[in-house]
């Protein structure tokens, strides 16, 4: 049996479940006194399961968003979309596997799709750099944005990255330049753009393909200016305070809906999307399709104008006398 991946906050529950399993392996007819205990433990588990998954902290959700079994962009492409044609390359340097680009159809809508792509296992994760794009990944994304724009295809983006890769070659090839150009390009596309936060939304590398006319987030996805660990190690000089900082950063779907940044939240099965992926795929299909239907036929000038107004209105300031 493969060892199950256990998230920090699940540990008490998992330990209790292990105990129950152990008890159940015993011959209860030989140990009738245990029958009651099994029942008790089972009840405890039920209660604990409910409380464990009921009131998740920001940090708990960060862990769910990073769960190795959580559905990835390619799972959505396979399950939510049909007639998928993956497109490759930036036409200048390489094909960054940390970004997936495709033409695809969702519920009858022909669209272009961009997503961050993590792997399912170590080999895949190395090839895909754990979903952390290099500049050529963003340049591939830009190529597909221009293609979508040219042919009037709405764009659907799937956000799931710890962030743009912080490495020597990424800096050499202009990581900041690629992200900035992508932001400017995306802001001006004359086709509908629906962004969906499916997992991690790490900083500029997420944002580069991570906004549009609608921003939909899964309940346990996060979207943040900085990873809680990095923030904690800067402000507290202690990455261990990530849990505390995660709450401060207001990075959950609910927090961001409260700030007016996220439009819709898709609720997940108890414990996270990986528990019942089909349920989540169905919900994503439905919400994305609705958003596309609502945006279909919009005047391109109006789309660009309203997307601009959306962005333009974000921020809280005070106007002093100076």
């Amino acid at each position, binding site marked *: 049996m493969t060892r199950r991946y256990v998230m920090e906050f699940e540990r008490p529950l998992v330990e209790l479940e292990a105990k129950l399993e152990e008890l159940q392996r015993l011959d209860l007819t030989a140990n009738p006194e245990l029958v009651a205990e099994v029942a008790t433990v089972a009840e405890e588990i039920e209660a604990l399961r409910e409380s464990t998954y009921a009131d998740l902290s920001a940090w708990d959700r960060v862990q769910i968003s990073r769960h190795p079994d959580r559905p990835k962009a390619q799972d959505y492409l396979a399950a939510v979309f049909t007639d998928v044609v993956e497109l490759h390359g930036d036409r200048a340097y390489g094909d960054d596997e940390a970004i997936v680009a495709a033409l695809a159809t969702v519920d009858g809508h022909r669209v272009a799709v961009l997503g961050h792509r993590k792997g399912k296992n170590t080999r895949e994760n190395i090839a895909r750099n754990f979903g952390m794009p290099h500049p050529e990944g963003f340049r591939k994304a830009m190529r597909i944005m221009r293609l979508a724009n040219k042919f009037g295809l709405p764009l659907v983006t799937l956000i799931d990255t710890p962030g743009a890769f*912080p490495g020597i070659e990424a*800096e050499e090839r202009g990581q900041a330049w690629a992200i*900035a150009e992508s932001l400017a390009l995306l802001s001006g596309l004359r086709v509908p753009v629906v962004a969906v936060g499916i997992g991690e939304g790490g*900083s500029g590398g997420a944002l580069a393909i991570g906004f549009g006319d609608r921003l939909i987030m899964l309940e346990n996805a996060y979207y943040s200016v900085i990873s809680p660990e990095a923030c904690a190690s800067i402000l507290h000089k202690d990455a261990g305070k990530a849990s505390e900082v995660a709450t401060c950063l207001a990075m959950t779907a609910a*927090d961001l809906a409260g700030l007016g940044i996220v439009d819709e939240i898709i609720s997940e099965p108890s414990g996270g999307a990986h528990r019942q992926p089909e349920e989540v795929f169905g919900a994503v299909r439905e919400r994305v399709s609705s958003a596309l239907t609502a945006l279909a036929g919009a005047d391109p000038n109006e789309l660009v104008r309203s997307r*601009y107004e959306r962005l*333009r209105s*974000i921020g*809280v300031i005070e106007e002093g006398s100076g």
Partner: protein
Amino acid sequence: MSISDWFKAREARRYTTINGERAAGSEVPDGVWSTCSACKRIVYEGQLVEYLRVCPHCGHHFDLNAFERIGLLADPESFDEFDAGVGSTDPLGFVAAKPYTESLESARERSGLTEGVVVGRATVGGHPVVLGAMDFRFIGASMGSAVGEKIARAFELALDERRAVVLCTASGGARMQEGMLSLMQMAKTSATVRRLAEARLPYISVLTNPTMGGVTASFAVVADVVLAEPGALVGFAGPRVIEQTIKQHLPKGFQSSEFLLEHGMVDEVVPRGQLTARVTTLLDYLARGGERA
């Protein structure tokens, strides 16, 4: 406060006045001096002023604050600040180690600024522009709601009045204390740059030490011409983050202006003494277009 008053007040705080003690083995007279962080040699204030705060020994460019930058670039008496009172609040009630409100307060006190960027109308070499400069002393000129808003308004005003934009950047990145409100300023400011570009109005950016993270990866680099000051550190990820990620030391000069030039990211590395003339010439080309000079 006028720029010249501001300059005086600022300079008064900045200089070290020698009180009896002298640097060992050197001929330092009583007076005002600084130590060059690059060559460690002593530089007298008179020299620093004459050399535009560039070390006369090694050419190291001392950091400038926002008004010093503006004073360097704007035609005399031409700068007219706007939105000076726009400041960030604490929308998230952010407390980590210390409350964000405290950071804002002390930054305001120390710098005399309301926020990390100063923007205004000006002329540069006679060209009407919107001129802006970031001030690293203000929480590392990190971009929160207010910096983003001021940059966005700067581009919108330039668009309305058909002015060019000239920005001197310096920033540690996004202002994490404002969470996603801060990250979204990257998209917001980039969108305003795009609108200016569609109107074919020129935008020249001057990357100064240091320009990192979310500012580099948004409005700082999507200019028509990108200049950089010598030796400035400019990049997306900070050197320490990269070292931790790749578990090795970074080569000397990594993420310097000169490194960026070599890698095709900036148009020119311009010593401070030539910057105003260079920006003027660029505006001659871009703000007037191709008709005869």
